[in-house]
């Protein structure tokens, strides 16, 4: 499936955060913001479609907890870890090519 770069980066950010351990949606949002120094942040609930898509694809597992007021916790699956590893490698390749090109353009 062809997805845009920003969409892919967002997915990888979420997977990277969840690789550190299970978290609620808001914790994922905060962690992404903090760990990227605010360069990446999720506003207006944009985090949820990403979480739900990854869950539907089997890359995350969402679990409800609590009797009265329920809360949803996400944890990464083995498939998610593979996607994260491969996605990170892909991005690294793409960015190194891009930076090299930009460096040459700048030098020229």
């Amino acid at each position, binding site marked *: 499936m062809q997805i845009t770069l920003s969409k892919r980066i967002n997915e990888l950010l979420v997977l990277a955060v969840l690789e550190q351990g299970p978290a*609620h949606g808001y914790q994922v949002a*905060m962690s992404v913001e903090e760990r990227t120094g605010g360069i990446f942040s999720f*506003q*207006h*609930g944009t985090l949820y479609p990403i979480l739900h898509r990854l869950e539907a694809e089997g890359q995350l597992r969402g679990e409800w907890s609590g009797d009265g007021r329920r809360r949803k916790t996400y944890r990464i699956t083995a498939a998610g870890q593979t996607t994260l590893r491969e996605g990170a490698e892909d991005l690294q390749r793409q960015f190194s090519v891009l930076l090299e090109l930009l460096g040459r353009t700048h030098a020229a």
Partner: protein
Amino acid sequence: MRHEGSLAAVERALKVSPERRLELIEEVDADVDALQEELERRGYSPESARRAALRRLLPAPETLAALEAQHAPRLGRWLRAAGIRGRVERLGALAAAILATMALLAAIWRWDNAAASTLLACSLVMVVSLLAANWFRAAASLWIDGSLPPERRRLLWARQVGLIVAAISLGGLGATWEGYTALAALDASASAAWNGVQRSVFFATLGFGAALLGLLGWLALIPRLITDETAEGRITALLVRSHPFRALRTPTRKH
């Protein structure tokens, strides 16, 4: 400003099944509260913490569209993607009308244009078509669009009951009328009487059969309707509990 939005507005705007809707708003509601508490711990005032939490987590219209695309029933998604959602109901109604007309014409032709029978049969076929269309609308709302809102549910059920009663009445009236004419024709011609009996059976079968199918058809929707109503009840309870500025009116828990 984003904080003017509320969970209730999100709930109203989301066009997915009540069960899905409940899960989505339950998740957002719990996250907003937890994030607000977290931000307050970091020194935000309750109001600014609430605003910041809502700005981050409350879905905007574009986000709602993305969520709907993910959580709408698969059949509905496919029909909308193919651009034929609107045509499905029209095509179904057209096919039902053509079949009903053909059945009616065949019956009238066999009955030698008996005026009273024809009139009754026309009315009965119309009621049966409306009964089928009414059920189809309810089923399409549930399984294609994802939900059947309570006021629409009540309207369709009232119509279904009315049409069931009409089918029984017309079927009974037709069967009685044809039975009466068969009895009257018994002395004159045995074949005419036999035709009358056949027509009587036709009316009884069509009227009572349609009523039974209309009832069973609705009963088939009941499990899903119960699930939806339960979810709607929980959504209402959650929305009563939740308010964009709830934390400003009630003491916030401190850790």
